[in-house]
């Protein structure tokens, strides 16, 4: 694997995470339990899609095949996506959506903090921009997880169920492969495994405030960030997200 291949792979991973999660979160638009939450979810989705533009834009540039961020978002099939599985699992109820957001935001904020020191100034600039937005996402998702976890009997039960369901998807964010090793060597991005300690400290504190119990299992579903095996849910998501560009190639707003 050449350094540029590894770099493109890394950028697709960043951009596909934000694209797929952004799309998932946008599915709540018009369906959230109250108007304020609807607006908050739509705003979060908007930030994530904005960040996708930057990551996939740079991915296209590094690939050097003349592909734009839009080409990469709308014209690839499931096996070419590099997002972690956590981002593509269905929303479930509001509690599960916010738990997924929290588990992702916590990783995202730590990752962007490290990327701000990237040896590639384009990566550092995107990380600097995105980290401000993500700090805000984390503040909100953590507050909501605490509010619902330490809430009523019903909300507590649902949040614990959400955590139990999503926990096996957490481990994938910290797995490393050849492309990651190449990025570490080039000083572009940190080793994913090196984020785990800080992540565990952060989520333990919040989940303890939320009176929730982290499952005692280190089993991790994987295959998203390598593209080896996505869940069946990604294909369904893409049929909706990509439908217009597939049916009417090149259609413009």
């Amino acid at each position: 694997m050449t350094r540029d291949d590894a770099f493109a792979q890394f950028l697709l991973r960043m951009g596909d995470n934000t694209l797929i999660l952004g799309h998932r979160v946008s599915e709540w638009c018009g369906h959230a339990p109250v108007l304020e939450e609807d607006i908050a979810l739509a705003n979060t989705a908007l930030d994530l899609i904005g960040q996708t533009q930057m990551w996939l834009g740079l991915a296209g540039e590094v690939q050097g095949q003349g592909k734009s961020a839009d080409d990469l978002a709308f014209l690839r099939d499931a096996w070419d996506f590099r997002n972690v599985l956590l981002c593509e699992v269905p929303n479930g109820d509001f509690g599960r959506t916010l738990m997924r957001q929290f588990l992702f935001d916590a990783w995202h904020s730590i990752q962007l903090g490290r990327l701000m020191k990237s040896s590639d100034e384009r990566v550092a600039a995107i990380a600097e921009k995105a980290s401000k937005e993500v700090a805000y996402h984390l503040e909100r998702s953590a507050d909501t997880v605490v509010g619902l976890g330490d809430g009523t009997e019903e909300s507590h039960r649902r949040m614990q169920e959400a955590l139990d369901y999503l926990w096996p998807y957490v481990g994938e964010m910290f797995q490393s492969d050849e492309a990651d090793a190449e990025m570490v060597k080039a000083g572009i991005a940190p080793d994913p495994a090196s984020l785990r300690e800080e992540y565990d400290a952060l989520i333990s504190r919040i989940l303890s405030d939320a009176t929730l119990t982290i499952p005692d299992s280190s089993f991790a579903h994987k295959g998203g960030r390598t593209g080896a095996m996505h869940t069946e849910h990604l294909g369904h998501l893409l049929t909706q997200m990509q439908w217009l560009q597939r049916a009417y190639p090149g259609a413009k707003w």
Partner: protein
Amino acid sequence: MSQVTTQPSTDQIWEWLDAVPDPEIPVISVVDLGIVRGVEWQGETLVVSVTPTYSGCPATSIISLDIETALRSKGIEDLKIETRISPAWTTDWLSEKGRAKLEEYGIAPPQPAGGPEKCPRCGSKNLTKVSQFGSTPCKAHWRCQDCLEPFDYFKCI
């Protein structure tokens, strides 16, 4: 030399840009908002650098279009608008004039403490947060406990 004298000064350009309203908060200009980061003549070409407030802000492309329209109407033909994402936009770049205009319009200006200082309508400090997000990416939703009026707060980032 004759070419140089036909070029409006950058001070003049800044003044023109200060008359271009933000499309979502039209009481303040794009200069007040702090998103115009540079105005520079590169030979015959005027280069204007613009930074987005939020990376997904849908107003960004409209803002570039408005800037282009305004400058073309002043006779500037050779124009390039560049997007600059670093250093990242911060609400510290809002002008004093912009902050005052926001408040007058009913939007509480950003505060380092993380919440509005007072109700933009009645001045009360008895406030409550309704939602961390609001009608645009740059705002949050608050309410005054005294006059009961809901209002937008410009998030501090």
